[in-house]
């Protein structure tokens, strides 16, 4: 096996399953939700009628919404446990270095500096997307719950909240869809060094070369410190081959 073919295991099976779950649920939510937002357009009506009408479309949307909420809850509980039990480093948290990295990256792109930031397990772009989905998902779950139980909600809270929840739900959804289409499509598929796709979230593997180039602070540590004491960085637990 040549040096080039060597890889790190970047994502464990659980993480890969979580990604596929969110990917499927998100797609289903967009497919059943966006036509409701644009129900006046013919493409939207075609989707709704193909699914069997608005009642069935809403039912599917709600069931998938509940599953999405459940997967989000699982993720939060699981990650919180892993971090608190010191089984993983909290590598997703933003820090000051991310702000610096963003500025340096932009300057690098503009050509005003030759320095390129050294990223840890996740670079600031990946963190932005993670927190965007988590925060946006939170908004969607909260407002979706209000829309699902308007009578229960208005027992305690003002009715205008339901109307506001509907407004927020549709616009937050649009923001999420546009972010995925623009940012994720570029970052994971269309970017010159990714095209046609960054497969590491499906295979779990990242080539040694790419790992050391893009996440030297994570894999550099692992590679140069095979005797590193526990706790091991969880997702890269396997040594490079």
């Amino acid at each position, binding site marked *: 096996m040549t040096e080039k073919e060597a890889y790190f295991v970047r994502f464990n099976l659980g993480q890969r399953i979580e990604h596929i779950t969110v990917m499927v649920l998100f797609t289903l939510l967009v497919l059943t939700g966006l036509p409701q937002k644009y129900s006046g357009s013919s493409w939207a009506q075609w989707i709704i009628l193909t699914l069997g009408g608005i009642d069935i479309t809403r039912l599917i949307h709600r069931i998938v919404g509940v599953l999405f909420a459940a997967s989000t809850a699982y993720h939060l509980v699981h990650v919180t446990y892993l971090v608190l039990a010191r089984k993983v480093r909290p590598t997703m948290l933003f820090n000051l270095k991310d702000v610096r990295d963003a500025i340096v990256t*932009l300057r690098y792109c503009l050509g005003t500096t030759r320095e390129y930031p050294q990223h840890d397990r996740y670079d600031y772009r990946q963190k932005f997307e993670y927190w965007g989905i988590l925060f946006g998902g939170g908004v969607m779950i909260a407002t979706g719950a209000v829309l699902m139980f308007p*009578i229960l909600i*208005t027992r305690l809270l003002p009715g205008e909240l339901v*109307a506001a929840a509907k407004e927020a739900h549709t616009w937050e959804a649009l923001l999420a869809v546009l972010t995925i289409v623009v940012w994720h499509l570029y970052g994971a598929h269309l970017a010159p060094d990714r095209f046609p796709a960054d497969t590491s979230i499906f295979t779990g593997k990242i080539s040694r070369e790419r790992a050391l180039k893009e996440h030297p602070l994570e894999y550099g540590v692992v590679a140069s410190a095979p005797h590193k004491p526990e706790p091991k960085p969880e997702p890269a637990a396997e040594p490079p081959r």
Partner: protein
Amino acid sequence: MKDDIAQRRWLRSLALKLGLSTVAALGLAIGLMAALALLPENARGASESQQVQSDEPCLACHGTQDLSMKLPGGDNLRVSVDAAAFAGSVHGGRLACSDCHRSYSTVPHAPVRVQTRRDYSVAQYEVCKSCHFANYTKTLDSIHYEQLSGGNPIAPLCTDCHGAHNVTTPDKPRAQISQTCSACHSSVYKAYTSSVHGKALVGEANGDVPVCTDCHGSHNIHDPRTVSFRLETPALCARCHSNSNLMKKYGISDQVTKTYLQDYHGVSISLYQKQEGGAQPSRITATCTDCHGIHDITSTDAPNSPVMKANLLKTCQQCHPDATENFPEAWLSHYQPSIDKSPLVYVVKLSYSIIIPFVIGGLSLHILLDIWRALRGK
């Protein structure tokens, strides 16, 4: 001698020719007359005066007042006609008695084969068809005809709404239309005359408000209790309530249909309409009349209006029985969100209209920079 025979032969052939010609001419004349008699009424304009004149023999008997006959069922059928009323009707001077009352050419007339007066009217149902074919055909689609063909003898016939000998233009004056319907639908008419529409029609002779036929149609009146009628209701009300000029005249919003269709109920109903035929809606969703009332619809300012703030919860509870005090505010009352009417919704909308372009614009810019970097081979 020879000449004699020849002359006789010639005379015989002449007589034969003359006889045959006479027969042919007579046949042609009879045929023409028969054809004329079968032609539709309007095609016979030229012979109008003769036709009307031909009423005179009928009026010799039927012009007598209080002429009536006993039917086998026991009813007294009045067979005298008010010649003056007929002359004043839309048909006066245009139609002859025999145009409608056929098969009475012999005197005494053939016996009437009906049991009751109503049977006689029902038997005459097809008479109007020969001239008013389009409207007759429309009635075949109506709830009234459905009732009639189902054996309900009191379902209205042409003459029940239009009159028989005294047919006048049905909408002169306009209020006449609703009064016509009130002959049978008296409780609906009573509710209607107390409504904002009915009051304006009866009290102010208002030409803008709907009369019965504006919503229900005239000849092809459909059952208003069907799902399809329900689904068409917003479009029905929108005919006037989305007409900016008309609504401005009365200081009413012309946004009601738009705001309805934007919200949950309206989205449901528009899509139910599209899936109709394939699948009936699995549930009922509120349409205009469910909140505003139907025939008894009032101004939204009226104290007894079901959409008055004080009455709104009860109105919502018709479909949402568990709804409580705050629930009705979830519906923005046909208003577009604004800082005065629903500040929270307005602020949310405004925030996203800033956040979305900012975020997506920023991300796009970052991507463009990265592409530029890649193009420079860095």
